[in-house]
């Protein structure tokens, strides 16, 4: 189980972006989290992926409470969760070829010898062709880069997948291909999924269970409307 209880998190202690949010994902389950832009769902996804330390609340991973985030979190916990971000351009190191991008988690965790096997396995699974592997991020399209980012998230065989608006920038056919790749991986491994997005139609078809932001985070806690399209609400002072 991936359980978030009563999470409050943000970038400014005085104005947290997420207040008292709770949700659970059972093993093998696909949960969709729907919410408007800027509501804090990405921040919640980062908390769940051990990338952002919440100010309060608990995160339970298979019943064990998580006490540390980012580098302080034990490596096994960090790599148990694969993350795919919204913007492939920003989530790929521009200096790495796609093959290195995908292999990087294996190298970082000292599993170099698995690189060739995993690459030959994952390349067709995410719909990349071998000739693309030698290119750098600026030489491929957003869709191709996002496929590589998905392969990178899957390369360590995570038990949980968090897809934060994974397909928001992509066309319908690439979206379908990426979702199919995620679903094939889940069917093979039984991994749980938290898919964050704003596309109700997509998430309804993709996920077993759909949650709206209002059900997840405490309502009526003085959450303020924010201008849409701003990714980092913390840089904009709340309108009063």
């Amino acid at each position, binding site marked *: 189980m991936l359980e978030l209880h009563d999470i409050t998190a943000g970038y400014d202690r005085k104005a947290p972006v997420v207040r008292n949010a709770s949700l659970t994902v059972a093993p093998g389950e696909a949960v969709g989290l729907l919410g408007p832009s800027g509501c804090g769902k990405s921040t919640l996804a980062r908390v769940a992926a051990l990338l952002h330390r919440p100010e309060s609340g608990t995160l339970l991973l298979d019943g064990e409470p998580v006490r540390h985030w980012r580098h302080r979190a034990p490596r096994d916990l960090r*790599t148990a969760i*694969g993350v795919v*971000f919204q913007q492939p351009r920003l989530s790929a190191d521009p200096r790495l070829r796609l093959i290195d991008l995908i292999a990087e988690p294996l190298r970082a965790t000292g599993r170099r010898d698995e690189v060739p096997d995993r690459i030959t396995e994952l390349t067709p699974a995410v719909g990349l062709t071998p000739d693309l592997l030698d290119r750098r991020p600026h030489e491929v399209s957003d869709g191709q880069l996002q496929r590589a980012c998905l392969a*990178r998230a899957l390369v360590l065989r995570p038990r949980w997948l968090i897809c934060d608006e994974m397909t928001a920038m992509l066309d319908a056919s690439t979206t379908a291909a990426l979702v199919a790749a995620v679903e094939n991986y889940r069917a093979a491994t039984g991994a749980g999924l938290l898919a964050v997005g704003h596309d109700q139609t997509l998430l309804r078809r993709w996920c077993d269970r759909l949650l709206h932001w209002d059900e997840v985070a405490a309502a009526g806690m003085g959450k303020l409307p924010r201008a849409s399209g701003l990714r980092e609400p913390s840089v904009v002072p709340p309108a009063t």
Partner: protein
Amino acid sequence: MRVSVALVGGIVLAVLLVPPLVQLDQQAVDLGAKLLPPSWSHPFGTDDLGRDLLLRCIYGLRVSLLVGVAAALTATVIGTAVGATAGALGGWVDRGVMRVVDTVASVPHLLLGIFIVAMFRPGLWPVVVSVALTHWLSTARIVRAEVLSLRSHPYIDAAVSGGASRWRVAVRHLLPAVLPQAALAAALMVPHAMWHESALSFLGLGLPTHMASLGNLIQDARGSLLAGQWWPTLFPGLFIIVPTLAIAGLAGAWRERINPRRRSELML
């Protein structure tokens, strides 16, 4: 730009090739030929001991360039290490390190440089150390700022999530990203370091006086200038100004290329 390339190329060739090729002793004293004005046999004239000034200038430039490059590289390595550490670790480490940087930066750097050289015997390396220890600050600031902005990038998040250690994130993702900025800072620092070498030598604190450095040459020439002999001052002076401007011009063109819209913090 082309002028700068040609000048820098010519200077590098001259300081590398002339000493082994001409086999002349720059220290050769000829009191019979002292303080000769420029002529065909001595294009830059001679100094008060009859030494050929063209040869002395080239040897001086060689020493000054060596000091400049060595000091700039050392300063850049120190600055990059400090800036990257502060930026990557953040928190109290960052605050502590940056306060130290501010403190060092609050002391006039020429004064601090004089203080450092004064602790050693005159020589080449004390000057390098002195210039390096007073010039890593701006690089540290630039690198720290760059690392801070990179640290919040999703690709760093992805690396953390992929199990990368702090060290691996720094070496694999952060350092390669700041390297162009650091190299640019180093290139911009070379002329600055050369000026400092000249200044320290001119004050008599830098290189030993027998060593032909541009600062020493001008210092030696002071007496003759008052007596109306202009060439021992003019030519070494030009040898400081022209190469440093050429290097600065090249580095400036490079800066425009790697970040066209942003003005670097480093100004000459």
